[in-house]
């Protein structure tokens, strides 16, 4: 596992921004949970609280023009890649101002302007989308990243696309967010060998097992993988081990997880760890607190604006089947 002190030296202020992004995701997910329970968000939600260091760390290694494909637990992927929180919240609420005009919903967010080729509601879909985006990226000097969960490692998408990307030496980074549960089922019970990184190694991809609750560690691994991809050395598999604070979806209280396991992971909350590390640097408490206040206000504004936005009007939606 990559250690926590290997990242290249960088100004603490940059990490303060990344910590703020992680906090933004945490607060956003809290609001989504609240709004779902209030009946404002419909269908289902899949919250990524506890996993914030992975998308933020990986996206910190990318250029704005690089591509990302996310999962149905994808709010963090979108926010880390630059999607406007208000537009994302409005999408969850089904409003006309949503990033997809309310047509996509929580599981299928697309934000091409920010390089988010899509979030995919069917397990493993992001792996193929990023593999394809890497075909374009190879011709554009860009890199494509797939986020996916441990469950996706048992899908055909994972095996076909890692092989495909490797034999074509595509500039892809495959980021497994291993949160140790595929929906309600422990990963180890349904994953032969119990080792996702080993599967990448079998295809001769460089693999890294990363402490996914450590922003610095994720960033260090991502920088290396992205550099490899951009330089033509082909794809990398990062297994980022992390944990979700909520259940799988909407009402799931996640009672299937042992209490000591949950407590152990909560004690390694990526936000707390990032905050403590910032304070160990030259940053002062008041600087961190000021950034936190700003992030809270940003979320409050975003949610209020999204809630005030209109629903799309079926009479003037003008949905067209095809691009003319």
């Amino acid at each position: 596992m990559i250690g926590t002190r290997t990242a290249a030296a960088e100004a603490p202020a940059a990490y303060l921004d990344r910590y703020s992004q992680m906090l933004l995701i945490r607060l956003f997910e809290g609001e989504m949970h609240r709004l779902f329970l209030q009946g404002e968000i419909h269908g289902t939600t899949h919250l990524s609280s506890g996993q914030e260091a992975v998308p933020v760390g990986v996206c910190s290694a990318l250029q704005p023009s690089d591509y990302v494909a996310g999962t149905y637990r994808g709010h963090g992927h979108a926010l880390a890649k630059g999607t406007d929180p208000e537009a994302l919240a409005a999408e969850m609420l089904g409003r006309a101002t949503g990033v997809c005009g309310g047509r996509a919903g929580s599981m299928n967010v697309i934000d091409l302007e920010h390089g988010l080729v899509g979030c995919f509601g069917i397990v493993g879909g992001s792996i193929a989308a990023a593999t394809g985006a890497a075909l374009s990226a190879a011709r554009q000097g860009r890199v494509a990243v797939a986020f996916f969960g441990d469950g996706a490692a048992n899908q055909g998408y994972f095996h076909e696309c890692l092989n495909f990307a490797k034999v074509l030496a595509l500039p892809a980074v495959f980021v497994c967010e291993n949160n140790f549960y595929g929906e309600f089922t422990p990963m180890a019970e349904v994953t032969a060998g119990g080792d996702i990184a080993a599967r990448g190694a079998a295809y001769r991809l460089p693999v890294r097992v990363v402490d996914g609750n450590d922003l610095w560690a994720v960033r260090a691994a991502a920088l290396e993988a992205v550099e490899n991809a951009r330089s033509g050395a082909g794809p990398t598999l990062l297994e980022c081990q992390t944990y979700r604070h909520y259940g799988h979806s909407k009402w799931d209280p996640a009672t299937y997880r042992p209490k000591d396991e949950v407590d152990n992971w909560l004690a390694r909350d990526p936000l707390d760890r990032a905050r403590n590390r910032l304070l160990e640097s030259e940053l002062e408490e008041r600087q961190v607190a000021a950034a936190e206040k700003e992030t809270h206000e940003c979320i409050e504004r975003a949610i209020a604006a999204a809630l005030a936005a209109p629903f799309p009007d079926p009479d003037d939606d003008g949905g067209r089947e095809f691009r003319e």
Partner: protein
Amino acid sequence: MSELEFRTAIRDALAEEIERDPTVVFFGEDVAAAGGVFKATPELHERFGPERVFDTPISELALAGAAFGAAVTGLRPVIEIMFGDFMGLPMDSLANQAAKYWYISNEQGSVPFVVRSAVGAGGRFGAMHSQAHGTWFQGIPGLKIACPSSPADAKGLLKASIRDDNPVIFLEHKRLYSVKGPEPEEELVPLGRASVVRPGSDLTLLSIMRGVPDALAAAGRLADDGIDVEVVDLRSLRPLDVDTVLDSVAKTNRLLAVEEGPRTGGWAAGVLGAVAEEGLHELDDVWTLTTSETPIPYSPSLEDAFLPDPDAIVASVTERLGISTAR
């Protein structure tokens, strides 16, 4: 007059579009070095190089997914899923990822790709290498489905499909690859537009792909019996050009749709439903000639009996119209 072979039409369409547009790439299983198992794509790899034309693993899900991801980020991929029967494997990428992208993205982007496959029975390939998958995809909004019957249409439709900004499923009937026909008169054949390939006044014969030359052969023989048959080639299964069929039925008042596939869930029954809904007052009679509701058999005697051919079309028409033939 020079004649064009169907498989050459496919190759030429690809070559011209790869030449014309630097974002067009073509990949699939054995399409590059081997030139395709039906020899439809020879020499493209040598001419355009591995950046534009390349072989892939036998991974249909990765193939379609890669085409999807590439199409939303600036390329215009053409892929080959070798046999249409294999289209069950990449279904998620095609039906969910590609078909819905334009709409659910709120028109941020679309998926300009083409998925070519060889389809159809009569080649003794058995139940899992002989199906035509057009109807599997016909009910999915956001996909276009092209199904040419002649070399000229194959070339024009494939070029139009590559230039189209939407995902196109492109069907090539195996028993058409060696058919020769006139060179195209127009460079592009529009998707979603049917064609009247033989005018007539007594009966409309409607079909696609191999069914069209079969219908033309049947029409020639029925003319000997004094029946003036109009033959309409749908050319696309989605969008479905019902208007051209309605115009034809307004002249002939009778419609026979000939489908190489089962009636249940087939395109023929779907067209008949639309014609009944919009043109019932024009109809004297309407029926289908389809295959049985079984998988496609292997043995030549069974497969030949399974397929609607010109004999079966002539027999169906004369029986339905109560005519005794000259033969």
